[in-house]
Structure formats: C-alpha cells, structure tokens
C-alpha cells in the first residue's frame, strides 16, 4: 500500500469515529462543563477558609482538565474494544485485512482531538480572565503538550483494552482505574502529602508530567525536566500498550471472542 492509501484509510476510520461521536447526544457538553463545575466547587469551598485567587483557580482547573482528559483517553481503547465486541463488530473488524492497531490508533486520535478541543474551549475564558492575551498565547504550546501526553495514556489504554478482552465486566474495571488515576495523577492536590513511594509512582506517570509541564507554561514559569519524563513515558507506555494488546489479540484468536 502506498502512503496516500494509508492516509486515506486512516482518514476514513477517523471520519467514521467522528460521525459516531457526533450522533451521540450530550457527551461533548459534559466534557466542556465538568472542569468548571469541579474546580468552581472546590474554589467555592476553599473560599470559606482563605481568599481564592485566580491563580489557585487555574491550578485546580488545569488539574481537573488533565484528569478528565486522561481518564477518557485511558478508557478509549478498552471501551472501544468492549463496545465493538458487544455490538458483534469486533470479529468483523478483525476479519478485514486492516490491523487492529491502525483502527485503534485512528479512533484514539479522534478522541485526542475531541479532548484537546474541549480543553481549549474550556480553558480559553478562564485563562483570558486571569492572564489576558499573553495567557492565550501560552495556551498554544500547552496544546502540543496535551497532544503528546495523551499518547502514553493511549498506550496504557491499549494495555487495559487487552485486559478487558479477557474480562466480562468492563465498567467495574473502569471504575477502579478511574479512581486510581485521579489519585495517581497528582494533578488535583499537592503530591507531597503522599507517601514517598506513591510519590515516585505519580512522577513516573504521564498525567503528572503532563500537568506540571502544561501548568508551567500557562503560569509563565517555564518547563522542568519533567518534559523529558513525558517524552520517555510516551515511548515506554506506547510500547507497553502495543506489546500487551498484541499478546491479547493472539490470545483472543486462541480462546475465541466471547
């Protein structure tokens, strides 16, 4: 296949996913409003004790953005697999000559784009309100950081997708993962309150790296070494995901899609 054909196929898969999302009512609205509600609620509660500044609000806000977007990203692969399976489509997708990696990757890119757009739309007014125009300019590189940061999360998601294929109950697993992620993201509270070893786990996960890097840029305080961590995470977690999913697909072909 030539490159043009590949791109055209990739685009077809993305378009299909977009179409499906667009016909799913309500999903996008929640995505946009959630960080406001949560960060707003936190700020409201905190305001009983101290005066909450715009900066504090932004810290919370970006934290929740990162957690939200991460959760969706990590769940994307697993949800896709389980939905395709229950809809009787998974085997038909496997039966085409296109590798499932391509299909999973293209559908995830759509989720990345949707999520980043949601992040952008949700952040614009807050950032403008606190930092003015300069804040908006700083928002642009954070988009790139988010884009990169979502890749390792996709890798983790791919590994999870593999686990999901073996389990019947996806929702139970996803609830556990969601809870773990929001604790381990370190994006919604100061991580020094955690035990040291949990601290180390948090720093090794892409959410925290993504959060700190994006926050540094928005605040105008520059990026730290965590950006290298993010790059390393991208490679490591993507590789982990690809490896795990590959093994699982093979297992699926041995044990049957249930």
């Amino acid at each position: 296949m030539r490159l043009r054909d590949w791109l055209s196929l990739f685009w077809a898969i993305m378009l299909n996913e977009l179409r499906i999302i667009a016909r799913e009512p309500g999903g996008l609205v929640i995505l946009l409003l959630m960080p406001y509600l949560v960060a707003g609620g936190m700020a409201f509660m905190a305001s009983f004790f101290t005066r909450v500044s715009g900066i504090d609000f932004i810290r919370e806000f970006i934290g929740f953005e990162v957690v939200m977007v991460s959760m969706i990203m990590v769940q994307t692969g697993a949800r896709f697999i389980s939905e395709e399976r229950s809809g009787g489509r998974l085997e038909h997708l496997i039966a085409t000559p296109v590798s499932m990696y391509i299909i999973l990757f293209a559908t995830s890119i759509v989720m990345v784009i949707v999520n980043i757009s949601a992040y952008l739309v949700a952040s614009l007014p807050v950032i403008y309100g606190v930092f003015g125009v300069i804040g908006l300019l700083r928002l642009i590189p954070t988009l790139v950081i988010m884009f990169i940061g979502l890749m390792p999360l996709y890798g983790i998601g791919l590994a999870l997708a593999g686990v999901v294929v073996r389990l019947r109950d996806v929702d139970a697993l996803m609830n556990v993962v969601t809870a773990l992620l929001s604790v381990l993201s370190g994006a919604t509270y100061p991580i020094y309150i955690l035990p040291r070893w949990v601290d180390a786990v948090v720093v090794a996960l892409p959410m925290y790296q993504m959060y700190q890097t994006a926050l540094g840029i928005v605040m105008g305080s520059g990026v730290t070494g965590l950006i290298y961590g993010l790059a390393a995470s991208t490679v490591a977690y993507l590789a982990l995901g690809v490896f795990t999913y590959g093994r699982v697909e093979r297992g699926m072909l041995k044990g049957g899609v249930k």
Partner: protein
Amino acid sequence: MNAVEAVELRKRFISYERIGLIRRRKTIANALNGVSLNVKWGEVYGLLGPNGAGKTTTVKILSTLLIPDSGFARINGFDVVKEAKKVRGIIGLVLYPDKGFYSRLSGFENLVYFGRLYGLSRGKAEERARELLRLVNLDWAANRPYEEYSLGMRARLSIARALIHDPPVVFLDEPTIGLDPVSSRSIRDLIKGLKREGRAVLLTSHNLWEVEEVCDRVGIIGSGKVLMEGSPRDIKDRLGLRYVIEIEIEGDSKGKVIRVETTDPVAELKRIMNEIEGNGLRISRMRVNEPSLEEAYIRVVSG
C-alpha cells in the same frame, strides 16, 4: 485447487465457570474433533448440525478468527493461520445476521466504511455499496440508521457487507436464523446468485429443509465431526427421512384418511392425486408433515 480445504481441524475450549465467591470450575468443550471438508469453486456447501455441533467454530477457523489446536485449512491455497491477511482479503463473512454494524450509522455509511477497511477507495466503496444495497433490496432504506432495520433487513445488509470487496469465497453462519419465511427466501435467492457468479459458498444451518434447495452438497456435523456428506437427496435417503402425507377423502361417511410415508413428497402427491381423481373422488383435507431432523441427527450422532 479447491476454494476451501479443511483437514482434521481440532479445537478445544477451556473456560472457567464461577462457583461461589472465588472458586472457579474449569470446563472443557471439545468443539471440533477432526473436521475435514472442502468446497469447490461455484459450489454451495451446507454444513448442517444441531446447536453446539461446531458449525460456528468451523466457520471462525476458516475465516481466521480462531486458531485451531491442530489440523490446517487453506482458502484458495492460503493457510488460514500463516497467511491470515491474504485470506482475509478474499473471504466474505456473515457471522451474526442480527448485529455487527454501527447502530447510529445508516446502512449505506456502514457498508462504505467496511468497504474502506477492505481497501476500496471512497468512490469505489460508495459505488459498490449502492450496487449491493440494490442487490439485497435495501436501496429504499439506504439512508436509514441501522438501529431501525428489521431482522430481515439486517440479515440482508450482512450479506451485502460480505460481498463489499467482491470476494471469491463466502462464509455464511446461519444467515436465516430467526427470519420469517419471506426473508429466508430472499436470502436463499441471494445465495443462488452467488453460486451463479462462480463463488464458493459455505453455509451453515440447523435446518436441512431450509437449505436443501440451495446446497450442492451438505455435510452433517455432530460432536465436532463431519459424520456424513453428500447431495441433499442422498443425505435425506441415508438419514431415512420420510414425509408423512395425510389425505382425507370427501363424501365418505367414515371420513376415510389415507396415510403415506415417503422420501419424495412431490412425486408421491402427484401419484395419489391422480389416483383419487381417477376414481372420481375429492379431497376434503390434506396435511404434509416434514420428518423431524432432530431425531435423524440423534440417530447419526449416536452411530
């Protein structure tokens, strides 16, 4: 070269059943115990058997969705395990006639998408989708969402998808299951069309009467083995399947009933009718009972 060739396929499933809170019980299902069969070009082969006989397992192995424990299979000479990608490009597949599409998308959008996955360009996929929707008589519902399709429409759309890339080999796993007689008939007509185009078709069913007219050859599968193979006529004879014809003659005060058992109901009916009319009698009531397949299956399976 045969279109489809399967030799001594074996497959065993191990699954775990939860008993109590954490304890699990291991269950082993020997789904296939050495299935061998082949399908020639331009032939419709019917794989017949009761539920759990191993029909779906066989179809999935042949369509690269399951790896056999032992034995091998080739489609147009390509090995289903080692050359899976090549096999995928030349087979069309119907697995579940009632699902397997995106419910929010229209029949047309669904077909075009799968066409793209099979490597067609957008223009080509759209053209082919339109053509196939006409063929399966769904062009009037092309832009309706799949979730609004009836069972019969879904089954026809499945067949359209199986043909989207114009594959020379087609596998249909119980394509008429749950369909009303009119829908089943339209599916059978489609299958006859596939045969005329020279494709090799493997069709599974648990009902011989439904598929006998479209199959050139049938194999009876039971307990994971092909137990008997031959033309539908041949199989019916060997299974000892007999129709029961009951005819009540008019005017006779006792309500005389003629009861005949036969393997060829059409010829037998003609003969009886001629006889009755020749004697100047009239028929008041008539019934033809199909023989029970389940009984015949059980006889064959238990040797």
